[in-house]
């Protein structure tokens, strides 16, 4: 645990990517299996411990600490895991210090009721940094500034391999990855990933701004609609069929309708939608489906799943990813004509003659029920990740609303001393404010400081970490769409809300009415 704790501690304070890579690489080189494999799993977000919850940690520390001193300490530190780690009464030597593998493997076996006792025993044995790392590990979200991709890049350079090679194997391997490390250290051949219905890493697009469009040589690109669903990969291999989200999460069980009667061996890239007779339904209907792990037959009938195909990666065992997009497109069209699978269709290519037309199509996107356009370089192979210069997404403009700040909450990690999470509302006809959404982003660090000060100066009530403020600050909030929602008092939910501008100048009374948002429902 000690090495893992030290690694996390260094990563938290290291701003530079190249240095983070070195720190992770050094850890892999120093620490034996299986600890380093579990660390890799933790850094790539592959570990969850459903039995460990923040409330449990709080209960454990409150049993051991004067409540007044706990409260003052928590106020000072601003982060529960760190407060608990620092406050935990030292009992060094009480128990043996646990290793990372021991912690992970024990927790995976343990029943929910055993977790508090196990945890308390380990916390007794560890030093403060070890306790902090343990609590971060089990509550998920390490927040040490390392993405899954960065961890894999560090792994690739540790083993002198290409990151793509690791990506390709990744979804066929399981923690603690002993076979992967053996290969990277030259002690064993590349692990055999069983021929199975595996996720293949997706190719992603870079956003394109209006101003950048004119510089793009349109003749080298093919255009498609960007459909308003979620990216998905369908894998069919020897009768086994799976559906993966963009990140490789298996979402197949929620879409049995799509996966039944598959009569082919292929890996397909497409947009998952709810559609009726080929007409996509608004995004919130898909959300209803995504929310049910095991949908009823009735829901499958009322909200039928649909896959709109973008690309063909593997056809009957033949890997097409090295082919150009135009070549793959031709193969996809031929494949589709041959199989005509139910609940699937092709995402049509859009003919775009010139830049002006491209911009017009994008402006009209909102009325045609699409999110915008995709531009894919005709000569590009299918590359994992977000490579530069190949694919672009040209999204429709965001909608905006002037809303009134109602509540603010302390952030996490770097923002734990700042009120950085904002709930904002719109005016009802009765002249009261009703919350319509929450946003955490869209402002600079200096704006954040000013917002934080505004919150502190205008607090009217406190509920734990949340401050209620007087209705005096208008936030211009950008969002992608308005959806009806029965879960919210306002009756609506905003999609991807973020703060576009802070209207320090605008009186709260002039902010938008709820009615205006209701009229925007997609």
């Amino acid at each position, binding site marked *: 645990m000690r090495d893992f704790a*030290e690694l996390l501690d*260094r990563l*938290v*304070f*290291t*701003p530079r990517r190249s*240095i983070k890579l*070195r*720190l992770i690489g*050094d850890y892999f080189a120093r620490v034996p299996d299986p600890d380093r494999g579990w660390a890799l799993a933790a850094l790539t977000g592959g570990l969850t411990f459903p039995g460990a919850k923040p409330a449990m940690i709080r209960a454990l520390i409150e049993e051991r*600490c*004067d409540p*007044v*001193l706990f409260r*003052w*300490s928590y106020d*000072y*530190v*601003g*982060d529960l895991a*760190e*407060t608990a780690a*620092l*406050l935990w009464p*030292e009992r060094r030597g009480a128990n043996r210090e646990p290793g990372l593998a021991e912690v992970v493997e024990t927790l995976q076996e343990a029943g929910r009721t055993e977790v508090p006792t196990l945890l308390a025993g380990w916390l007794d044995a560890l*030093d*403060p940094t070890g306790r*902090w790392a343990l609590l971060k590990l089990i509550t998920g979200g390490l927040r040490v500034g390392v993405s899954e991709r960065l961890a894999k890049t560090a792994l690739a350079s540790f083993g002198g391999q290409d990151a793509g090679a690791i990506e390709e194997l990744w979804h066929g391997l399981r923690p603690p990855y002993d076979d992967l490390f053996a290969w990277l250290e030259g002690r064993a051949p590349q692990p055999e990933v069983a021929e199975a219905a595996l996720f293949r890493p997706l190719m992603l697009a870079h956003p394109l701004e209006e101003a950048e469009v004119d510089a793009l040589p349109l003749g080298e690109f093919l255009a498609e609609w960007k459909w308003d669903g979620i990216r998905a990969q369908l894998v069919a291999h020897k009768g086994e069929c799976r559906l993966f989200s963009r990140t490789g999460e298996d979402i197949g069980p929620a879409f049995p309708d799509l996966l039944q009667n598959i009569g082919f061996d292929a890996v397909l890239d497409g947009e998952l939608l709810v559609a009726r007779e080929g007409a996509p339904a608004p995004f919130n209907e898909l959300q209803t489906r995504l929310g049910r792990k095991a949908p009823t037959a009735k829901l499958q009938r009322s909200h039928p799943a649909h896959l709109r195909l973008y690309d063909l990666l593997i056809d009957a065992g033949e890997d097409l990813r090295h082919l150009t997009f135009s070549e793959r497109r031709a193969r996809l069209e031929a494949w589709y004509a041959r199989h005509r699978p139910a609940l699937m269709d092709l995402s049509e290519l859009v003919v775009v003659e010139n830049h002006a037309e491209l911009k017009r199509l994008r402006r009209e996107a909102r009325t045609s029920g699409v999110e915008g356009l995709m531009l894919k370089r005709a000569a590009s192979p299918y590359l994992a990740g977000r490579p530069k210069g190949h694919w672009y997404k040209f999204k429709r403009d965001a909608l905006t609303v002037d809303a009134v700040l109602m509540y603010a909450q302390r952030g996490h990690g*770097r923002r*734990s*001393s700042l009120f950085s999470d904002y709930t904002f509302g719109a005016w009802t006809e009765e002249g009261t404010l009703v919350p319509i959404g929450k946003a955490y982003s869209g402002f600079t660090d200096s704006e954040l400081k000013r917002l934080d000060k505004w919150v502190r100066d205008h607090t009217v009530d406190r509920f734990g970490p949340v401050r209620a403020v007087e209705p005096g600050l208008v936030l211009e909030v950008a969002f992608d769409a308005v959806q009806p929602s029965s879960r919210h008092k306002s009756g609506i939910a905003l999609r991807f809300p973020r703060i576009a501008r802070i209207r320090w100048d605008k009186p709260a009374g002039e902010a938008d009415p709820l009615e205006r948002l209701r009229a925007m429902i997609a």
Partner: protein
Amino acid sequence: MSREAHPENWLQVTPRGLYCRPGDFFIDPHRPVERAVVTHGHADHARPGNAAVIATPQTLAIMQARYGERAGAVLHPLAYHQRLSLGPVTVRLVPAGHVLGSAQVVIEWGGWRVVVSGDYKRQPDPTCAAFEVVPCDVFVTEATFALPVFRHPPADEEVRRLLHSVDLFPERTHLVGAYSLGKAQRLLALLRHAGWDRPVYLHGALEPLCQLYEEQGVDLGPLRSATRAEADLAGDIVVAPPSALADRWLRRFADPLTAMASGWMRVRQRARQRGAELPLVISDHADWDELTQTLREVGAPEVWVTHGSEEALIHWARGEGMRARALSLIGRGEEEQDALP
């Protein structure tokens, strides 16, 4: 031991500082006075311009190094444990373990014994005499780190982390921010103890006090001027005052990695605000456990708490059955704050 002679009647906070009336002297006054007893050389305790100064010989040497003629008109060295009568009051100085020459002031009058701790710590420190417990009736304690989240790890463990980082990044200069009196010298001694025998490079502001420590018999190993160094000092360790870490001065070094040695580094959020890439939790102040241990050991039924998080320590002391109150002294903690904006 009469009630009228209770220290709250003769040891009081005044605009110029804590004043002992029967002995007619101030302890660590923050404005010039006729007679001052000074606990240690940090600028928020030892100020220039007093007429007479009573302190340990080491503290007086530090004040002379910092203030020259302004250290005081008459300097009266008082070795540890030596008794001095000031009127009817007896005063002696006892090691506080904070920095070289740091002392607690033991004041006896009317059957009462008051100990003013100044700043102190209980962790071992090779550069100064260790804190001694003096049982007393009233203990006046500092409270810089008086929250239970502050628990300083062993300092040699922190130095080991520094050396591991030097191993890992040999092409970078490790630049450690450490306060110029006490922390810098302790860090150097700890590095030597951990086996680092190469020269350590110093910011100019640290040179006089390091020299003074050496003259006082504290061996700090080979030291060089960082400013005059010809190479970019890749793989070397440079010690500088914290204020220099954000300075153009550090651009001369090889991709400097900034470390910061301070008790405030315990809380990650604080350490991040400070911008340190390698926070080292090394403190010359008592942490929570040391504070509470000390309060128990001196056995004083009454505790006065000065600068820091007074309320938490007062809450704890009352829970232990002690009488406890805050003693608001002006101008304390500023030296630490210089180090940490």
